[in-house]
């Protein structure tokens, strides 16, 4: 019986241990990004993007991130649901958009924003995103 209890504890732990802080962080990063965009604060918005995602935006737009990020046309919206698995997360917004996050050297950062499910089964096809790394 002690072995069964230890296994159960491990399973519960794997599903949830240490995740509460991560969930709060991932949610806060997403909300900070959207609020900053709404206020026109490109510097703060860009700080919430992962280095690869920032580089992709600069590449695509040919101007600094803080100037380019406003042209994505994203609207502020509340985080309606957050899913977090190991070092990856997805925030579903009330307006139907989704954002993807990953945990990097600087903590949780957005790897893709303005995402909508592509045609077909969402589990099989990657979302189509306004910006991704």
């Amino acid at each position, binding site marked *: 019986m002690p072995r069964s209890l230890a296994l159960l504890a491990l399973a519960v732990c794997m599903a949830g241990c240490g995740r509460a802080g991560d969930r709060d962080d991932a949610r806060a990063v997403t909300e900070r990004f959207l609020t900053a965009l709404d206020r026109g604060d490109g510097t703060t918005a860009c700080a919430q993007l992962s280095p690869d995602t920032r580089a992709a935006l600069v590449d695509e737009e040919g101007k600094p991130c803080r100037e380019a990020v406003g042209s994505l046309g994203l609207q502020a919206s509340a985080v309606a649901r957050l899913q977090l698995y190991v*070092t990856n997360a997805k925030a579903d917004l009330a307006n139907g958009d989704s954002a993807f996050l990953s945990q990097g050297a600087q903590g949780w950062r957005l790897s893709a924003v303005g995402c909508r499910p592509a045609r077909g089964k969402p589990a099989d096809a990657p979302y189509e995103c306004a910006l991704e790394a």
Partner: protein
Amino acid sequence: MRRHGLGLFFGAIFLAALIGQAIVGHADFNHAQAAHHGDPISLWRYVTSSEFGTDVFENWQSEYLQFTLYILVTVWLVQQGSPESKPLDRAGTESDEEQKIGRHADPRSPRWAAAGGLRTSIYSNSLVLVMAAIWIASWGLQAVAGRIAYNADQLDHQQAALNLWQYLGSSDFWDRTLQNWQSEFLAVGSMAVLAIYLRQRGSPESKPVGAPHDATGVEG
């Protein structure tokens, strides 16, 4: 200590192998993190993660399934010439007398073997019941942990996560399951057949070296 050498030896090498798996699995996970510009995670976080959990439990469930099946099917199925098999004429659950149950129990028999009724029925199948329970529990944990690890990959590729029901029907779950099952079934089947013709002097898993190939149910 010498009287318990078999259990102690396997307990020790199990722990050594599990620790080794944790160390190299952690290094491999962080290698993949680096490839995706991710942050390395600590060893503790790795061993409490679903990535480690699913790798452990998928192997446990297949091992316990293997022994559960082997205990069960060797009641009825025999293999001529194999030390893993009972003599050909003893297939089945055998008589109470042969099994020393109820009034046939001797003074040193376990209490539940002599008790009769439900207790003896339970005790008569207790080995397979416990092995099957561990198999089901570890298979369930494989599913729970495997889904979390799978969903981490899904989100990394901007794909939707699966719920547990969807994951149970996924190719990932069945690929992890069947790749372990096939190796267990091969190993146990080949052991039963190879032991007809081959010998290991001194091992109870083998017939005596001089035993004929058609001698069944003889252990050296």
